[in-house]
């Protein structure tokens, strides 16, 4: 019987590899903490073994992906454009909140995030931004009294 070594489940293979890499790194980093003994465990003991277990599970998942019975699948492509617009707008909001205040950073976040949609339109995005700004000001600043800078710090 011929056993072909072929990656049948690419998702499984990648997941297994990911587990192994994370597990090994966790165990490696853990060795820099005090290990202690089984009776008096140091901070490194528990995470070290968790890393070992994760790496072992990763190995099993990886082997399973090679089995003849494994269902064939391919790693779907990552939609980087959408991801960058969506998560980038959140990161930018975090970066700009302190210096520029809620008003400007929120409007910018909404407009940038809206660009992720294939139905993007300037008018709708700007109106949505203004609507969300007024809701946020009403609910969070005046309603719940959250401590957020609203206007740019250089204006205050």
């Amino acid at each position: 019987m011929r056993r072909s070594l072929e990656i049948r489940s690419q998702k499984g293979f990648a997941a297994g590899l990911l587990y192994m890499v994370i597990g090994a790194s966790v165990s490696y980093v853990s060795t820099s903490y005090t290990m202690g003994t089984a009776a008096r465990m140091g901070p490194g003991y528990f995470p070290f073994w968790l890393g070992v277990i994760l790496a072992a599970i990763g190995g099993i998942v990886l082997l399973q992906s090679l089995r003849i019975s494994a269902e064939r699948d391919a790693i779907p492509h990552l939609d980087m454009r959408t991801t960058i617009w969506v998560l980038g707008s959140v990161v930018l909001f975090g970066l700009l909140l302190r210096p520029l205040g809620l008003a400007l950073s929120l409007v910018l976040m909404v407009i940038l995030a809206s660009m992720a949609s294939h139905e993007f339109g300037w008018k709708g995005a700007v109106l949505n931004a203004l609507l969300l700004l007024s809701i946020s000001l009403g609910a969070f600043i005046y309603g719940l009294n959250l401590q957020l800078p609203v206007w740019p710090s250089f204006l205050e």
Partner: protein
Amino acid sequence: MELIDHLMLGFSTALSLQNVTYAFVGCLLGTLIGVLPGLGPSATIAMLLPATYALPPVAALIMLAGIYYGAQYGGSTTAILVNLPGESSSVVTAIDGYQMARKGRAGVALATAGISSFGAGCVATLVLAAFATPMSELAFKFGPAEYFSLMVLGLIGAVVLASGSLMKAVGMIILGLIFGMVGTDVNSGAARFSFDIPELTDGLNFVALAMGLFGFAEIIINLEQREKRETFTNRITTLFPTAADFRRMLPAATRGTIIGTLLGILPGGGATLSSFASYTMEKKLSKYPEEFGKGAIEGVAGPEAANNAGSQTSFIPLLTLGIPSNVVMALMVGAMTIHNIQPGPQVMTSDPALFWGLIASMWIGNLMLIVLNLPMIGLWVKLLKVPYRYLYPAILVFCSIGVYSVNNNTFDVFQAAAFGLIGYVFVKLALEPAPLLLGFVLGPMMEENFRRAMLLSRGDFSVFVTRPISVSLLIGAALLVAIVALPAVRQTREVAFQEE
């Protein structure tokens, strides 16, 4: 009767004007967000968690419970009207509910879901109240070894229900436990995996983790799929089921309630397992099996009763043992910790008003949902018509402001974005985020109990198998794994999860 005294105390707490108001606000917000397509209870709760920070603990928990029920109700509404189940627990509802909607019976389907859920909720609340005291007495017999084994059983139980590969899911748990290790070690004070970033010495931010994995990742996935879905919103005319409908609905809802109540108590049980089990059973028992998948009312009544009963009784392990059995319960642990309440058997004795108030508010919440939502269906339907391109920026805004306000720290916003990316990659690799979140919440507790058990046994590992309760819990966990690994069971499990 002790039970009656407890319930009286609960109702007197829950019926204060303040708490009724928060239960109402919770139900309303929960439904409002939960009805949005693609947002399930976990994402909804993660998003609304920060809104409860400023409240006193009792009010916060009551509001969160309201959000949970509201989100679940909203999820069923979306499942029925748009065939877009927000979370696995309403996957089954979508099968026959959507078909009913296509036949112009959307109103009846929604009413059936509401009525069945309410009936199930009433029964489950009573069961919860009755079980709470004996369960927490049992919990006081637990030492660290028992707690560790119980958590192993709970985590394994949660994984058995994951629809994908068992091994992948176990890996996600371990990864979650590792994420839970980040921060200062309570025993030694050493900072672990914080890589000299001061913000990380307090550990990863729970809200950021949940929002990123469930909220942000979900948005990217939704934006990626550009298919249009047909919404049946214009044909809601009759809301009330006919007498014939009731005759078919009642037995199904009753059976669903029983299944849900029982399965909800199990570690790892809860809404999803209950609704799947109920659907399978209704299909087997029905006189009209050919109608299933084409709009059978039993297919809505049974699973909806079951998932509501299950979600209610899954509070039992949380409130009495301090062990969350599913993601939503893990989120409740996060919320309780923020309010400095350590979930576990001591809550009932140290803060009886909070404990029984929460239980009573569950019933009040269920009542509110049916009174509120049936007349308000028109409003939810309008909300469903708002295009997604306006909705997701709103979700991003509320999440970002919410996660920032937890510690008034922009680092948490970056964490949420990072977990969004991680969550997106997970989805692409068919890895489920739910077990990770459970592991994350249980990680520190598990390590603590493991270390204490080993300290007491002077480093002897056999302590976990020589103590009777501990060993039975571990055997239970091993049995679960063995059962799922059996080829026959594996096949039916795959079939069950494919019946979507």
